């Protein structure tokens, strides 16, 4: 029996039926490995998933620093999403930065009974009086839609009254099956109401947006550092250290880089459709991945000078970190890892771990879709279900004024032939090996079981799993918050990651777990006392 079967056999038939298609031990045979994803979590199973609000407010719109994001609902959701995600944001010179703040309508029973729109409006008047922001986002929590509050209508009124941008998001927690629905709702809103509304053209020769980079631990800054060193201009980042002011002009960039495929691939696709901007799925996690990413970008622009500069920067950067990386590799080579994260990281970090000599033998996503595992080719095969149908799909069409293609379709095909992965993504499976375990919508029980059977040396997950893994004697690091370290992206980030993993694996306290009296028998004498 392989590890998958061992795990599944512990389930009752009811659970077994559901979970079996979410757990794949890769065969890598002629028949392609498949997985079920983006379906409902089983009630009571201790899924790691969060909700739609967490995806919309927590992930996508929360990081936009010059916007006031109001949580419309009872206090809890505003509290939990306050300062907890490490989406770092620098205050711009003379600019306003609302990241350290939490705004909430803090609804009470009367608001639930009689509706909360008035309280929301009063709150916005107060926010305007106190802070005078240029942009306000309203994020709904569970009860809002049910009691009939219309946050979009309120937002429209605000725009009229104050002449600012205001967007209402109906991202009630129960929508969809995971955070993924929240990303979608957020991105739809931004696509419809922000992107394309500015007219500030980039000054540089080549300009980029980074999509799906939330600047956790400063990852985005390390990416920007490298890209700027090569000579690119960054127009906008979605949405780490991002802003309403820059996102308005995102449609004027030359190329979109997609970091987190899961949370934002459709925005890239819509911008391609509407504005003609190509996109590249990139990965700045890992030395190899970063080099590959940088080369692809340079090659995309077909500029020999740019390509040369890219190689120069890569050489410099590699030189600066090679001693450190070699040291950490010497410490970590041959170890195995498991990674359970929300979206793309469970794939991205495999590159970096491999750079350090660590194989990722277990990987799983909280809220991915099948394409994140199997590649975009299978998107057409995915059938919408009741839950996904509840999430609005927006359709965009070419903006005749702003649409601008860099390359003809033919030329694009030619570039793709050369290995530049334009407008595509292969998913996680191809980078893994036979026998490795992939789990969709993982839960606490499966984590525990797989640790026992697969025995990874280190497990990367989130805070909810961290301590139960650690109690089992397995090194556990958070890949959501980086355990308050970072950045892990790019060249410098790889070194920091190497250091952190080495630290946690080699920390002295591990050997203290078993008290000496467990191994040294009492010689002679009676056994008495409390035990």
């Amino acid at each position, binding site marked *: 029996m392989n590890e998958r079967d061992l795990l599944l056999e512990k389930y009752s038939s*009811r*659970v077994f039926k559901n979970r079996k298609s979410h757990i794949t031990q890769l065969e890598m045979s002629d028949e392609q490995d498949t997985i079920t994803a983006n379906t*409902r*979590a*089983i*009630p*009571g*199973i*201790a899924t*790691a*998933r*969060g*909700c739609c*609000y*967490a995806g919309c407010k927590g992930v996508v719109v929360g990081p936009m620093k010059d916007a006031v994001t109001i949580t419309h*609902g*009872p*206090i*809890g*959701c505003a*509290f*939990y999403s*306050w*300062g*907890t995600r490490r989406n770092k944001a620098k205050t711009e010179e003379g600019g*306003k930065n609302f990241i*350290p*703040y*939490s*705004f*909430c*309508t*803090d609804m009470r*029973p009367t608001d639930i009974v009689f509706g909360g729109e008035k*309280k929301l409006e009063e709150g*916005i008047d*107060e926010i305007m*009086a*106190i*802070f005078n922001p240029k942009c306000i986002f309203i994020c709904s*929590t*569970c*009860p809002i839609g049910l009691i009939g509050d219309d946050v979009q209508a309120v937002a429209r009124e605000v725009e009229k009254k104050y002449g600012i941008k205001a967007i209402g998001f109906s991202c009630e*927690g*129960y*929508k*969809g099956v*995971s955070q993924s629905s929240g990303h979608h709702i957020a991105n739809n809103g931004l696509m419809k109401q922000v992107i394309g509304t500015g007219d500030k053209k980039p000054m540089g020769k080549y300009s980029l947006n980074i999509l799906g980079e939330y600047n956790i631990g400063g990852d985005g800054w390390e990416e920007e550092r490298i890209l700027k060193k090569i000579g690119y201009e960054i127009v906008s980042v979605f949405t780490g250290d991002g802003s309403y002011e820059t996102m308005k002009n995102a449609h004027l960039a030359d190329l979109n880089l997609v970091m987190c495929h899961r949370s934002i691939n459709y925005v890239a696709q819509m911008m391609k459709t509407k504005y003609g901007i190509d996109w590249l799925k990139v990965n700045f996690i890992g030395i190899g991945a970063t080099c590959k990413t940088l080369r692809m970008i340079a090659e995309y622009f077909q500029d020999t000078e740019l390509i040369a500069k890219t190689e120069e920067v890569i050489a410099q950067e590699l030189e600066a970190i090679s001693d450190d990386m070699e040291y950490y590799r010497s410490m970590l080579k041959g170890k195995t890892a498991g990674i359970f994260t929300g979206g793309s990281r469970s794939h991205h970090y495999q590159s970096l771990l491999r750079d350090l000599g660590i194989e990722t033998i277990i990987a799983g996503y909280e809220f991915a879709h099948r394409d994140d595992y199997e590649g975009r080719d299978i998107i057409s095969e995915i059938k919408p279900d*009741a*839950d996904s149908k*509840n999430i609005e799909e927006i359709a965009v069409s070419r903006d005749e004024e702003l649409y601008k293609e860099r390359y003809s379709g033919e030329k694009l095909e030619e570039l793709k032939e050369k290995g530049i992965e334009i407008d595509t993504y292969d998913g996680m499976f191809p980078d893994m090996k036979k026998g490795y375990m992939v789990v969709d919508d993982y839960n*606490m029980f499966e984590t525990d079981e797989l640790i026992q059977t697969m025995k990874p040396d280190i497990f990367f997950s*989130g805070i*909810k799993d*961290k*301590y139960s893994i650690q*109690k*089992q*004697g397995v090194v556990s690091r958070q890949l959501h918050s980086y355990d308050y370290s970072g950045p892990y992206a790019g060249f410098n980030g790889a070194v920091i990651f190497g250091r952190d993993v080495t630290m946690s694996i080699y920390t002295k306290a591990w050997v203290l*777990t078993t008290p000496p009296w467990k191994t040294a028998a009492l010689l002679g004498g009676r056994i008495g006392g409390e035990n």
Partner: protein
Amino acid sequence: MLELTPKEIMENRHITINPCKTCEPVGAMFCALGVENCMPHSHGSQGCCSYHRTVLSRHFKEPAMATSSSFTEGASVFGGRSNLTTAVKNIFDIYDPDIIAIHTTCLSETIGDDVGNYIMDLEVSDDKTVLYASTPSYEGSHIQGFSNMMIGIMKYMTQKAAVKSNRAAIFPGWVNPGDDRELKRIAGVMGVDYIYFPDHEGILETPMTGKYKYFPKGAGTSAADIKALGTAKKLIAMGHITSSEPAEFLDKQYKVPFSLIPMPIGVKLTDKYVMALREISHQEVPQTLEDERGRLVDLMLDSHTYTYNKTAAIYGDPDIVYSFTSLCIEMGMIPKYVITGTPKEEFTRQVSALLKEHGIDTGKCVIKADTDLFYLHQLIKNEPVDILIGSSYGKQIAKAENIPIIRMGFPVLDRYGNTIQPTVGYAGAIRYVEKITCALMDKVDAEAKDEDFDVVM
């Protein structure tokens, strides 16, 4: 940091900015974790459960086990019965607790899910219990959720008995596991045989052993003890806001008389706890405990020059804020701003009475319930304080205004080791007098000119 916060205070603000409370369900989850072999279950969207487990894990640096009904749009429209039924089956199958303690959420409350009815219809084996408490997120705060779950558990599990036992009952209120240990130790040395509920000792502070158990063995209030609560001869309930409703429930249902006392922090409030125990056991206070107390008073006297008339902003949950206010007064400090987010006006009355009892001019202090840290920050911008005492979220203000911060209460997300040590009792006060004094003295040292820098203090 927080440089957008203006000095001018807007009266009667409707929008909450930088909250000083959270929602009921997390309190219910925390409470249920203090029962042996019990799985807390969140009846609502799975995000609630995820958020609550997260904040508990971040505070305790421990796994916080709980499950969710994982509502989707369908459940929100048609009701959560089916989700709950499935969840209960799955939880028993996979995690095998003895008890499932369900709490509701704003979602299930808004749609009017009748959880009481749902669980009556469940087929549950005799040795298992499924119970619930109503914890609508839009009412009260996490503190109310904790109380509600205590009542919920008692409602379902406590039984009438013909005769009273010789045991007392102790409700500690919302405390850390290190506090549970200390409260039980004191009860033990006072010769009181007790049922302690809820009890997080050994649960949200499991030792590192290389093994992980969903439900730590022998930890948490046992089902048998909960069952027997109604037979208690006397109840000591701690924390007026947290424990009064559970205490009244037990009194009303089972005629268990109770002493409602503040959280025993500092000298006088710990004295109250000891006196309440003494009244039960009719045993004189042992010298060792009296000595602990004497050492604490001695420490306060020794260090009073560094704390006297120092102003403090104390914020957080109402009962612990009340008791820290008392401790600060004992240290000669002035509790200038005493703040909770929990919407209980009793808090304001109680703290005011405490200040008046000690002759402190309440006109120079601001005592406010149902408010937020944005307001506290504005107060401080108008008149600063010497020290902040409260949860981790005050650290933003601490940084912005260069004020030392002492972390206490819930949640402390950014420091290690506090939850396994006591805050309550004489021992807890010794720890906090040391911490507070040390923080104030560190500031003296840091700001001292070279010529004023003292080696002896």
